[in-house]
């Protein structure tokens, strides 16, 4: 099934043009320096990298919020250029996103029910009753109940809010879900619950994930393929096992070494190194 590619990026470049003050010189920041990758249906690609390496810029381009400065983006084989074409409802429905901070990603003045039905209202032809039923179903699927439908976001915990955010992303039945560090703001026990929920949903809806993270243990758990970014460039791209077993680039090696490890061998080796 190698032909079933859902997302393909060819040489994506993103530049930010800023000026230093009103009469200052224009400054060009290259946030992405030619990124290429492809993603198969039903798989998970993890994007790893430090802060400021262009992960979020990539997420903004893939969710069709910002256009790329150069390069091509193909979703299900169709080239997409939001600089030229107006975004259609069908296209809008294909890619959705879940954000890192569950406290900032829900509108504090919007009830959970409205959070879930607003995308349906704007992108589908369902009537009010259908939207309501569909949103209720989705609430149950992400592990919340119909009784939460009329509550405001401030009444929920971080993990529950992230479930709401996932439900909002899924009501449009997207093909591709961008997960922008979806668990890094949650504590460990809740992280595991959310990751399991994501794995279950991936199976149920045949979803494709692009998982942005800096937590390598999470990446190892969820990813099929791994892409390591460094200053806007891809320095490593391959299957999970290949990247974890045999990292090629210096940065990747440094990154793996920086991960705290708790096994006895590793601690002994470190202590030996410290005492010698």
């Amino acid at each position, binding site marked *: 099934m190698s032909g079933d590619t859902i997302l393909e990026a060819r040489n994506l470049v993103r530049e930010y043009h800023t000026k230093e003050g009103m009469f200052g010189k224009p400054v060009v920041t290259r946030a992405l320096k030619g990124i290429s990758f492809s993603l198969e249906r039903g798989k998970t690609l993890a994007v790893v990298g430090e802060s400021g390496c262009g992960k979020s810029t990539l997420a903004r381009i893939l969710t069709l919020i910002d256009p790329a400065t150069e390069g091509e983006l193909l979703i299900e084989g169709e080239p997409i250029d939001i600089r030229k074409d107006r975004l259609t409802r069908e296209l809008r429905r294909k890619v959705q996103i879940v*954000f890192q901070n569950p406290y*900032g990603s*829900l*509108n504090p*003045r919007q*009830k959970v029910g409205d959070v879930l039905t607003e*995308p349906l209202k704007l992108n589908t032809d369902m009537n009010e009753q259908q939207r309501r039923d569909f949103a209720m179903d989705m609430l149950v699927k992400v592990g919340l109940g*119909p009784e939460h439908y*009329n509550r405001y976001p401030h009444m929920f915990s971080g993990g529950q809010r992230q479930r709401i955010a996932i439900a909002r992303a899924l009501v449009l039945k997207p093909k591709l879900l961008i997960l922008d560090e979806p668990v890094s703001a949650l504590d460990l026990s809740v992280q595991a619950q959310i990751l399991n929920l994501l794995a279950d949903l991936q199976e149920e809806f045949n979803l494709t994930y692009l998982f942005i993270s800096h937590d390598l243990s999470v990446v190892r758990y969820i990813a099929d393929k791994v892409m390591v970014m460094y200053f806007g460039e891809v320095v490593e791209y391959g299957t999970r096992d290949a990247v974890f077993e045999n990292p090629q680039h210096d940065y990747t090696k440094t990154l793996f070494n920086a991960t705290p490890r708790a096994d006895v061998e590793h601690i002994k080796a470190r202590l030996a190194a410290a005492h010698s």
Partner: protein
Amino acid sequence: MSDASIDVKAETRLDLLVNFWKHFRTNKGAVIGLYFFIGLILVAVFAPLIAPHSPIEQYRDAFKAPPVWMEGGSWKFILGTDAVGRDILSRIIFGSRYSLFVGVVVVSIALSVGIFLGLLAGTFRGWVDTIIMRIMDVILAFPSLLLALVLVAILGPTLVNAMIAIAIVQQPYYVRLTRASVISEMSREYVMAARVSGVRTPRLMFKTVLPNCMAPLIVQAALSFSTAILDAAALGFLGVGAQPPTPEWGTMLAESREFILNAPWIMAFPGFAILITVVAINLIGDGLRDALDPKLKRS
């Protein structure tokens, strides 16, 4: 199912209100101000029933009659009469109508136009932002009363024109406040989430972002309500606001200033009316700010 959901909804709305009142109540001054303001509204609404005389009827036998507690005063004219024999109490009661009217109209115009311009500037940034904000800076560069005076001089001296002029003068504060809130809200993740779920810019501006910017605007509206009343009185005093015989408080002050030495009550009572009203509304505004600003909440 639907019954349960309606219950939850009602509860949350009520909770918000109860919570707000709990914070507002701790500020004694604001509560007193609120009671006075409610009293003022009742007086304005029922003015024809409360007032003992017509505000423009002249009693030829009682020019400059002193108030009841001074020598020569009578219960017929409790606060005395002015130089042409009109009952001051009745005029002040009817004058409250004009003051509230001025406050409501000026704040509504300034608030609605200010929110709209501020939203445009904060959402689109770039040249739209530059044009709107530079115009607002120009308005701010003039002393407010002077600018209002010039505008009324151009438009013609009536109460309606005075209100328009005051609304224009107060505009920049609303625009700046809205723009600042919108810019800070626009960078939040829920706005990006709304964009991804297909919310287009107009809906994003009015339905997603605006409700989250309302708290400082409500406070500003309450505070500028009193400024509007004061400015209208000032314009009336200068003779370019409401024209005689309208019982507007500022105009009453202006008419009576030549009698300040031999009949000071004619000038004192409208002055007190302006003073107390403005203080009361400012107290309410302070209370609102404390109750609505999450940073000042102590809970």
